[in-house]
């Protein structure tokens, strides 16, 4: 991409240090990058790699303990670090804008949105009246449907997606040369994220603006950016045109990162996911050699002693001595399909749910918020049921109701091993309680920080396994071993463990009483992809060893597809689609499933033929009449959708769709879409990555 002769932003050998405990630790080391006029540059990396620090040093807003240890940041040739206060303010007002990760916090809670937006125009010298009308126009540009109402409202009255649109409007209002987006869609639902990304792509062309896009999500970056840089431990390890980097990575870290993703229609039966062994080096703990050497399967003595330079490979850069061999990085897990597990014997059902309802704040008149509505499902031994849906779809409420932590409405029925379960966990038999366990989303919340890891797992073994003394110690060791925790991990507090290790402790605890069903409530959503891969592998392994069944709740379709035998799609507490995983993913789909698939495409998917949902997810307190999805449905056929709730109809045997459109018509509508889902599942991943 040397077509842009002029660079808008240049980072030149930039190093940034944070002062922690009296010593300066480098979080960004000698990073150099250039962003041309109109170019979108993506900076990707896992947590702790220094992405956000890079953004904050460009706008010179480092935290109190941070300082630039060396190098330059130039905007249009001007050195940002050399500006005085007034010059810096002018640069921020005119040339440089930023969109933030958490839009709810980035907007002032007590000032009307119109005022916050108009302010930007006033800095530019507009009169109050003019500023207001331009703010109105700006809100229209970011496709906010009722700008007048939004102008007078406050941030807390808007949904996350709307807040982020306001954030984008505010950033673009000054017509800047450079826009920095710091994880702008993290925390948004997939369908909303897709819309916001479309909007960014659209406005980018309209404003011909340069973009620095920071994200941990490779697929998102691949959708927006022309070029991409991969950060690892504060260093730029690879850089190049997005297409080339993702299709033909030349640094082992990039290779490993791409392999961790459970995308491309991979399934657990085709083998485990690759992981990245080891841990990110601590702040400032990098020695002489390559920062990635300790975790790299290709590393030699040379890598540990000699820091690799940034090799220029005809426009693609790689900081690896062995960039030509990067893709031959050995796999960390077996990839051949596990023949011994197939074919499955006819399996007995372990869990059956029938007509489950949960209404919050129910009154006599039948009002209240229906969080789960008429949910039925069946789970067979040793199988995984994936539960998919966006926020507010009732996934977590369902999980908690199933476990007896929340009481369902009367009338539903939950059966475990053929016996009906009481509504509250306290009323269930001991056997039933220990057979039905959960792995929570957030291990910080799920693990008591006052207890040691040994205490946490030991207590579960005592209570659920009924074990004492030496027998318990033995079992504790075994269990810890099976989730790859060492003795050393057992003696510490969960706070001192990394996110992945914490989740292993939670898994060990859930398995203490040999459960037959484990609910996994987004267990990897807070983890980096490399750690996620290891946890998913562990779950698959435990399942094949113990014949345990999972209900796997997630918003990540790739993960659900990888793990699940059956899939259930929820929208506003209602089942929209239910069936064997392969059939749900290959179609015909419910239009909502179709939209979810469309929103969550893989790296390098074609952009055309996507369907997008308009508008907001309705509140479960006031669900739409008729089909709950009709307000956003791109395939709505007429007033029947607004008036009549469609039944759950079988499309194929075992595959049911709640839609007025017959399954074969849906199939016909959906067939034109260039589907990622038909991509062959290859056991040999080299085919996917290796071809340039």
């Amino acid at each position, binding site marked *: 991409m040397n077509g842009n002769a002029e660079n808008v932003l240049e980072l030149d050998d930039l190093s940034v240090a944070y002062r922690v405990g009296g010593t300066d630790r480098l979080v960004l080391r000698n990073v150099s990058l250039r962003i041309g006029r109109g170019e979108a540059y993506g900076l990707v990396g896992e947590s702790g790699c220094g992405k956000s620090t890079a953004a904050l040093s460009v*706008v010179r807003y480092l935290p109190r303990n941070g300082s630039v240890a060396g190098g330059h940041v130039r905007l249009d040739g001007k050195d940002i670090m050399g500006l005085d206060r007034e010059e810096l303010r002018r640069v921020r*007002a*005119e040339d440089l804008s930023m969109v933030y990760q958490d839009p709810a916090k980035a*907007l002032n809670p007590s*000032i009307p949105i119109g005022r916050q937006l108009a302010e930007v125009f006033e800095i530019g010298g507009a009169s109050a009246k003019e500023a207001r009308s331009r703010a109105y126009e700006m809100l229209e540009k970011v496709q906010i449907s009722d700008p007048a109402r939004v102008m007078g409202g406050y941030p807390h*009255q808007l949904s996350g997606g709307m807040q982020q649109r306001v954030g984008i409007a505010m950033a673009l209002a000054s017509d800047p040369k450079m826009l920095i987006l710091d994880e702008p869609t993290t925390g948004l639902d997939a369908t909303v994220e897709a819309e916001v990304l479309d909007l960014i792509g659209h406005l980018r062309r309209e404003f011909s603006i340069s973009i620095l896009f920071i994200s941990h999500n490779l697929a998102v970056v691949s959708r927006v950016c022309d070029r991409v840089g991969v950060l690892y431990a504060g260093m730029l390890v690879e850089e190049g045109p997005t297409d080339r980097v993702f299709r033909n990575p030349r640094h082992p870290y990039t290779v490993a990162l791409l392999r961790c993703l459970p995308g491309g229609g991979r399934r657990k039966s085709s083998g485990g996911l690759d992981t990245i062994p080891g841990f990110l080096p601590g702040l400032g703990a990098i020695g002489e050699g390559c920062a990635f050497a300790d975790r790299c399967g290709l590393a030699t003595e040379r890598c540990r002693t000699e820091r690799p330079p940034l090799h220029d490979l005809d426009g693609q850069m790689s900081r690896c001595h062995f960039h030509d061999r990067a893709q031959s990085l050995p796999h960390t897990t077996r990839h051949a399909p596990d023949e011994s597990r197939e074919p499955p014997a006819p399996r007995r059902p372990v869990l059956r749910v029938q007509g489950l309802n949960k209404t919050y704040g129910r009154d006599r008149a039948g009002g209240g918020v229906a969080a789960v509505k008429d949910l039925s499902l069946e789970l067979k031994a040793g199988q995984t049921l994936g539960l998919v849906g966006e926020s507010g779809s009732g996934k977590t409420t369902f999980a908690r109701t199933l476990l007896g932590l929340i009481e369902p409405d009367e009338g539903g029925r939950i059966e475990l091993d053929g016996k009906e379960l009481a509504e509250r966990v306290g009323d269930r038999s001991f056997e039933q309680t220990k057979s039905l366990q959960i792995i929570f989303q957030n291990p910080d919340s799920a693990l008591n920080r006052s207890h040691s890891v040994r205490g946490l797992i030991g207590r579960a073994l005592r209570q659920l396994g009924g074990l004492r003394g030496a027998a318990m110690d033995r079992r504790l060791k075994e269990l810890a071993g099976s989730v790859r925790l060492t003795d050393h991990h057992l003696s510490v507090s969960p706070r001192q463990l990394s996110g992945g290790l914490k989740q292993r402790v939670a898994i060990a605890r859930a398995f203490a009483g040999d459960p037959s069903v484990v609910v996994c409530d987004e267990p990897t959503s807070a983890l980096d992809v490399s750690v996620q891969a290891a946890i998913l592998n562990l779950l698959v392994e435990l399942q094949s060893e113990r014949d345990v069944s999972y209900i796997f709740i997630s918003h990540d379709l790739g993960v659900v597809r990888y793990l699940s035998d059956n899939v259930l799609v929820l929208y506003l507490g209602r089942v929209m689609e239910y069936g064997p995983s392969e059939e749900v993913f290959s179609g015909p789909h419910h239009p909502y499933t179709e939209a979810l698939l469309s929103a969550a495409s893989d790296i390098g998917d074609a952009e055309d033929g996507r369907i997008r949902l308009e508008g907001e997810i309705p509140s479960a307190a006031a669900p739409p009449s008729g089909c709950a999805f009709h307000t956003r449905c791109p395939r709505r056929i007429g007033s029947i959708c607004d008036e009549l709730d469609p039944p759950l109809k079988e499309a194929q045997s075992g595959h049911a769709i709640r839609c007025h459109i017959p399954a074969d018509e849906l199939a016909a509508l959906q067939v034109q879409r260039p589907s990622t889902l038909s991509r062959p599942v290859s056991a040999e991943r080299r085919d996917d990555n290796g071809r340039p």
Partner: protein
Amino acid sequence: MRGRRTPARVIVISAFILKRLALSLVTLVLLSAIVFCVGQVLPGSVGRLLLGPFADHEAVEALNASLGLDRPLLVQYADWIWGFLRGDMGRSYMYEAPVQPFIVEALGNSLKLAAVAFVIVVPTAILGGVVAALNHNKPIDRIISIGGLTMTVLPEFVTGIILILVFGVWLKWLPISAAWPDGAGGFTQIHYLILPAMPLILVLFGYIARMARSGMIEALESDWTRTAVLKGLRWRTVIWRHVLRNALLPTITVIATQTGYLIGGLVVVETLFRYQGIGLLVFTAAKGKDIPMLLAGILVIGIVYTLATLIADLLCAVFDPRIRLGGRQ
């Protein structure tokens, strides 16, 4: 557009106000019940107390009956509350006169003293807190924080004694008694009130400054302040328009709760400076076991406190749209 939205907004606000009023009312009812109950367990019979140890039994009983003390408790309570609502607070045993005029006069005096203290302390303390926050971790911040904390924790009679010694006895700048000559004008009255107000000011300064400081620091470190700065706004605009409004919200509540401590402090200060306020009145009533006066005084103090917190909550609602407008529309 605005017109369409207004009715909904009014409903939300008035629902909030009604709810808040109901809460205050519950608190007041409970408060009066507690005060009344404590009045009941006070030792000895009132008749005996009034007539002394040598009066004969019948006379004591008769007096108790004439005071209505032989009726069921609930009736006595209802009677007391009903009287209170009509402005009849009972008769003082000590002065053998209606309680109400004493309370009204004393409350007026106390409010004067409190007003002097508040007018001085609220602006200075907020300013102090804001200055400290803007100079976070610098010497001026340390001086304001530690100095404020030190002043806050000292009992009023300790600071009062030292202030009297320094300004009243040694320097002779200010009168050491709060009792101004009859017919003194407003300025003279204020002159007499400055020294008694000082211990209260010192106590309140630390509290309010501390709250303002931490609110400011939180606001300055917030994401939306970062947004405002990176918009390219001038620093002064960022502070005035964005930071202060959000930063000082918690301070309003603190100022209101401090009213309670202020009234507690008045007992001591009014005793020390012999000032005829509600604190001294309650104190004298307690010493003299003048139960109607004591109970009435305490109830009035509780009402003032409850009103202050009510006003604080309503003020917060005015400034904070999240409270005022409820959740998402």
